[in-house]
């Protein structure tokens, strides 16, 4: 994997050039945010639910080893095989071995961000396993060989015409179809035989209940249920942070998840797996892949509370105008920008800067992750770890020095006032050229406030240097 920092700004600029896609993307996600707001207004207990969810998650994370052991014991009792994977490679190897032991060549799967993290599909392809995504959006992305651009609506950056083109190639449908119903039907018809002949099914897991050994999968299409109930082998890949202690805790999370994500009260399917079906076999792979290390990061461990609803993406004005793919990472948007640097600090060093720190993400987060404050803190960490480009770092250093010296600062202002046709360089520190690309510069003024004050008020008070308070 290349370590080169993701150029979010350039990718975003490219995204902005395509007006129809941009407009749809912005409006669709904003609509999801509006629907989420409507659900919030229906429930007077919304803020209490968020608080409960946050506290349950923080508690669970603080006792994660105990709850994982409890889950494992209960799951085993119910006949589930439990596996542990330290990283993506280990996860892929485990899944590969399970499939091999069953001579399974055709795997159908529902959406799982963890398998994206592990880059599992290419690994299994090399082992001769054919992997078919069954979630419509994820399938579109698979056929187009792209990462999901959003964790809930993976193909939200595409228009119907894009999907028609992709399906025409693989499903031999008419490339000029403009009715999404026809395309969704084409997916259903194409997926059915694959589902019926699959050797194994794979799902993720939204929640894991320690006290019962249950894991819960939430989907709208029913594709996870098909993936789990038609083949007799079910493998679930789950991040170790997904635990909740009690069955009753699901009440809080299920009430928040889909309302936050899509603005619907609940996903159409909320499925509880507690053991294999008649004649079947069930495996759970618990994946760490950096999570245990993140738990030790004082400023960032609460990002592990995330329930992957995508509300922070929907509300983010930067995400809506740059598209998920511009983040160049499995996780995009505000939550991605605070998680991705834990996977690769250099590569994702630009992402905490792809934010205005406006704070809307924090307000919509159903588990109260202080996302914008973590973005701010990541910037400090990245600078301390020398992950800021040298020129930018130097400019900040010079600006900081100048700001500590009032006389030099005034002289700098005077100098720019003379040549104020251009943007005065001291204010935004020299690397200002991009300002004027899509914006006019501020207008020059005859005198600064400081000058005005000297002329109009100074005589009223002594000119001595300010003294510090005793």
């Amino acid at each position, binding site marked *: 994997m290349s370590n080169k920092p993701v150029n979010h700004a350039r990718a975003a600029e490219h995204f902005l050039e395509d007006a129809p896609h941009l407009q749809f993307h912005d409006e669709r996600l904003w609509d999801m945010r509006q629907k989420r707001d409507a659900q919030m207004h229906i429930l007077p*207990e919304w803020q209490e639910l968020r608080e409960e969810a946050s506290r349950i998650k923080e508690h669970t994370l*603080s006792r994660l*080893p105990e709850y994982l052991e409890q889950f494992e014991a209960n799951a085993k009792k119910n006949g589930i095989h439990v596996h542990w994977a330290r990283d993506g490679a280990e996860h892929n190897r485990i899944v590969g071995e399970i499939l091999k032991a069953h001579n399974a060549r055709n795997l159908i799967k529902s959406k799982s961000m963890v398998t994206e993290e592990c880059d599992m599909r290419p690994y299994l392809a090399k082992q001769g396993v054919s992997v078919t995504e069954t979630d419509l959006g994820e399938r579109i992305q698979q056929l187009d060989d792209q990462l999901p651009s959003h964790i809930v609506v993976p193909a939200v950056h595409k228009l119907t015409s894009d999907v028609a083109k992709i399906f025409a190639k693989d499903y031999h449908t008419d490339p000029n179809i403009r009715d999404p119903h026809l395309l969704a039907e084409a*997916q259903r018809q194409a*997926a059915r035989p694959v589902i019926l002949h699959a050797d194994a099914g794979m799902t993720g897991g939204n929640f894991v209940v320690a006290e019962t050994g249950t894991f819960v999968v939430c989907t709208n299409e029913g594709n996870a249920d098909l993936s789990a109930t038609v083949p007799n082998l079910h493998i679930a890949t789950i991040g170790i942070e997904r635990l909740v202690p009690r069955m009753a805790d699901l009440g809080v999370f299920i009430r928040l998840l889909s309302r936050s994500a899509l603005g619907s009260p609940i996903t159409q399917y909320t499925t509880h797996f507690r053991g294999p079906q008649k004649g079947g076999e069930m495996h759970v792979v618990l994946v760490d892949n950096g999570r245990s290390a993140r738990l030790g990061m004082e400023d960032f461990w609460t990002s592990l509370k995330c329930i992957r609803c995508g509300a922070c993406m929907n509300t983010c004005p930067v995400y809506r105008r740059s598209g998920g793919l511009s983040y160049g990472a499995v996780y995009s948007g505000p939550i991605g920008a605070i998680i991705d640097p834990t996977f690769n600090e250099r590569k994702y060093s630009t992402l905490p800067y792809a934010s205005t720190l406006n704070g809307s993400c924090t307000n919509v987060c159903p588990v109260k992750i202080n996302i914008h404050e973590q973005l701010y803190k990541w910037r400090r960490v990245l600078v301390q770890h020398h992950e800021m480009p040298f020129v930018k770092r130097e400019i900040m250093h010079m600006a900081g020095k100048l700001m500590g010296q009032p006389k030099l600062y005034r002289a700098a202002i005077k100098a720019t006032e003379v040549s104020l046709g251009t943007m005065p360089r001291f204010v935004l520190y020299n690397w200002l050229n991009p300002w004027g690309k899509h914006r006019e510069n501020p207008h020059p003024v005859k005198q600064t406030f400081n000058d005005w004050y000297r002329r109009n008020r100074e005589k009223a008070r002594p000119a001595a240097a300010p003294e510090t308070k005793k």
Partner: protein
Amino acid sequence: MNPARDEILQALRNNRPTPENHPLPPVRTLGDLDASRERFIASLKILGGDVLEPVEGETLDQAIARRHPDAKVICSNVPEARGTLPVEKVKTPQDAATIDVTVVRAPFGIAEMGSIFLSESQLPINSFAHLGQHIVVLLSPDSITANMHTAYQERPEFRSANYGVLMSGPSATADIQGVLIRGAQGVRSLSVWFA
């Protein structure tokens, strides 16, 4: 024994925040506690499900035929409906693929969401709930619980079933340009028959 397991658990023990600072909050029951049939129906409709109301003394079989006039294969797992395909014929998960309408009984519903619960106890085989084109669900109006809190606290099925699904309306997607489509990969429609 299992180096991955031990290493992960040890790292978590080393890195976790102080457990004493994060006590487990008590279980709470929040929100509207209305468990009425009316609330259930309103919620069900929001999620695209519908109620199958009997017309003038209709039997369930007649009502299903009226709602799904083109259905050829109707398979019932409840005594209230006969169907056309004996449920004993559905033996493997794939066998359910030919069904046009499946008929099942849910042990309970949730008023807040219009959800019905199904588990292996109500299904001859788990895929029965998903591979058919349409599903008709029998539900007793006395078996409606108010909301998700009461459901998880009161219903024993969550703790006993190996497979338990809450279905809230038919399968749906909005993955193509945000257009909501009912009937994505699973059932195309879900109707509730109160009995």
